[in-house]
């Protein structure tokens, strides 16, 4: 059963790619992508339920579906579904009809590589999958072919390739460390590394871990390696921004979580957690400052992603059931909420013809309904109740106060307030400030395609904020035992 679900999960985007490139019709490519994305979402839920009791291993242990991987798959599939629907409405606004099949082919390819990364059991192949996500998304970032987007694509590929090569070095060193314990030949699986880790010479293990942390941290957008992120997220088309922010960052966090679980229970475990907490809090603080004095609307969203990836890192670093559950819940909530934010930003950007916050005024007059969704989403992403991010941030905070990193929890609270004020003051300006000569916004066609995904992401954010389903909690406890390596 798991096997057929898995095949379906990967066959759907592959079919969409084949259709997009094979029959070069824009409409067909749109619908194929949306269908594939819906299939993936429908598959990802039973997949998670199935592997919860029994993780499955295929293909000579190169592929493994475990609860953690299946959870990230669920988050990615959600964003894939939302942003592919949004893309139908948004990409038609760009007047690039001839290149749309190319866009959708790359788009599904991007989703495919991210989903593939989640099921890779071999550490080296995982690295390759993450590298492939970079290569494909580079062309999505540069899709609009303007000077800015080309610049962003170039910076993205150089910074991320450089960073990710550190992760490869770390992976090689991990393997070398393991070879003292398991012999020169062994399969480079997560389980094997986990088994070997306690016996590896501590300084070697420490250097290896720091290298992979910096490497995958670059890809995840942890400060100070986040420099590519605001450029890439702000210059790519809005659906791609949502995918980068809501899906790609999660896939990279998965790498960090897995390596954290490899070193859990070894002599460097404490240091590893401190390092993750350090990067988390640093990202949070840096992002808070940039959010306060931001002028571009999509760069604002991008720095908010740095902030939330920092929060996830904090959750993982605090550890324990609470911390990990909080981080995982945050991953889902952030995926939903940030997609909503990027969709709103894309609408505003297209209607007002500008990326500057100062040009976007009286949003409610232009978007009476989706404008309200966007505003509520902003309140949610700033961490206010009754939205889901409040619950997950609160859980992470509880984990922080209970553990040894109380200082980080205090800083977290202080800068959460800074972010709240900074983020919402931009929205206050956009919604309620009057200007002398207001820009005349363009009326955009294809409203339903752009409004539907906003509703689809807003409603779960609201529901999950009011009610944390018990089933989710049991998923999180299972994953947290897996990460903390209960047996050791």
């Amino acid at each position: 059963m798991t096997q057929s679900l898995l095949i379906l999960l990967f066959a759907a985007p592959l079919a969409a790619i084949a259709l997009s490139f094979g029959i070069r019709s824009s409409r067909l490519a749109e619908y194929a992508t949306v269908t594939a994305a819906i299939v993936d979402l429908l598959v990802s839920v039973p997949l998670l339920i199935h592997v919860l009791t029994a993780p499955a291993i295929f293909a000579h242990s190169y592929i493994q579906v475990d609860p953690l991987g299946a959870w990230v798959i669920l988050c990615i599939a959600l964003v894939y579904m939302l942003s592919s629907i949004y893309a139908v409405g948004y990409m038609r606004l760009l007047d690039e009809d001839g290149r749309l099949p190319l866009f959708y082919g790359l788009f599904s390819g991007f989703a495919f590589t991210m989903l593939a990364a989640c099921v890779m059991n071999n550490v080296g192949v995982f690295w390759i999958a993450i590298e492939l996500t970079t290569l494909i998304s580079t062309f999505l970032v540069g899709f609009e072919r303007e000077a800015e987007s080309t610049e962003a694509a170039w910076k993205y590929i150089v910074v991320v390739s450089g960073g990710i090569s550190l992760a490869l070095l770390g992976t090689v060193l991990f393997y070398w460390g393991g070879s003292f314990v398991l012999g020169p030949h062994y399969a480079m699986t997560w389980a094997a590394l986990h088994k070997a880790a306690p016996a590896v010479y501590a300084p070697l293990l420490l250097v290896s871990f720091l290298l992979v942390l910096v490497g995958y941290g670059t890809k995840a957008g942890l400060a100070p390696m986040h420099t590519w992120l605001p450029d890439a997220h702000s210059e790519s088309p809005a659906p791609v921004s949502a995918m980068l922010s809501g899906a790609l960052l999660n896939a990279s966090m998965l790498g960090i979580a897995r390596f954290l679980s490899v070193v859990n229970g070894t002599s460097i475990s404490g240091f590893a957690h401190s390092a993750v907490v350090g990067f988390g809090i640093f990202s949070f603080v840096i992002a808070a400052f940039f959010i306060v004095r931001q002028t571009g609307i999509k760069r604002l969203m991008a720095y908010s992603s740095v902030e939330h990836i920092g929060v996830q890192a904090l959750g993982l670093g605090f550890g324990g059931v609470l911390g990990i559950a909080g981080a995982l819940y945050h991953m889902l909530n952030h995926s939903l909420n940030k997609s909503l934010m990027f969709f709103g930003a894309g609408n505003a950007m297209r209607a007002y013809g500008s990326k500057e916050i100062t040009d976007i005024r009286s949003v409610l007059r232009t978007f009476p309904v989706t404008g309200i969704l966007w505003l509520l989403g902003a309140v949610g992403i700033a961490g206010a109740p009754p939205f889901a991010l409040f619950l997950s941030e609160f859980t992470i905070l509880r984990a922080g106060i209970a553990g040894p990193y109380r200082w980080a929890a205090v800083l977290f609270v202080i800068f959460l307030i800074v972010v709240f004020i900074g983020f919402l003051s931009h929205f206050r300006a956009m919604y309620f400030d009057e200007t002398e000569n207001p820009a005349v916004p363009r009326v955009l066609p294809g409203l339903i395609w752009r409004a539907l995904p906003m509703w689809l992401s807003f409603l779960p954010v609201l529901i999950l904020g009011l009610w944390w389903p018990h089933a989710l909690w049991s998923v999180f406890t299972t994953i947290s035992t897996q990460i903390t390596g209960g047996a050791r």
Partner: protein
Amino acid sequence: MFLAHINPLQASIFSSLAVASLLLTFVMLGSHWLRNYVYAFAVQSWLIAALSASVGYFAGYPELYLIAILTALFRGLVLPFLLTRIIARLNVKREIHTVLQPSSSLVLGAFLVMFAFVIANHMNRQSLLAAHVVVLALTIMFSMKFLGFLMLSVRDEAVSQILGLLVLENGIFLGAQILVPGMPLLIEIVILFDLLIVVACFGMLVRFLVVHAGTTSSRQLNRLVG
């Protein structure tokens, strides 16, 4: 671990190949001319291929011969060919704007190698002869990392940034041949192919840069800040 009972001859062969590769990195660091850069990279790749073959021979890993052939072919021939084509198309001959003079970057590079040695020395737990090779391999792995990042940060020209990234990868490859010759064959091959795709992507992007941004110097890519 074949390194545990390595004999002096093997140790000196591995060391000299590794040291020669490091020296070539310095050639790249000190050179103004992009073409020399590419030649140094090609020779370095050939040395790494020779290293793979000799490790394969002495340690009894026949699959490393395949890796050696592929390395020589891809890194030693195809990549340099692609790079010279990019250079010819861009019509840039030399790195004009360097943040650092080549001489000062050589000095800085030397310090980075020392730093790499200190780290490598801390990570080693082997004894005697094996220790020499292991520390050397780790030192060169880290120093090529550092030097690659140094090149990335002090040079602006798009092609030299691609080369900087390739040096980063060469360092890993070199170290991996000595430290973990038993690493699964599949992964090494896939990483080799991956590199080919990386360079192809970079080539395409460079063309976009010329057309849409009007420059291939990262110094002038300054529209996006803050």
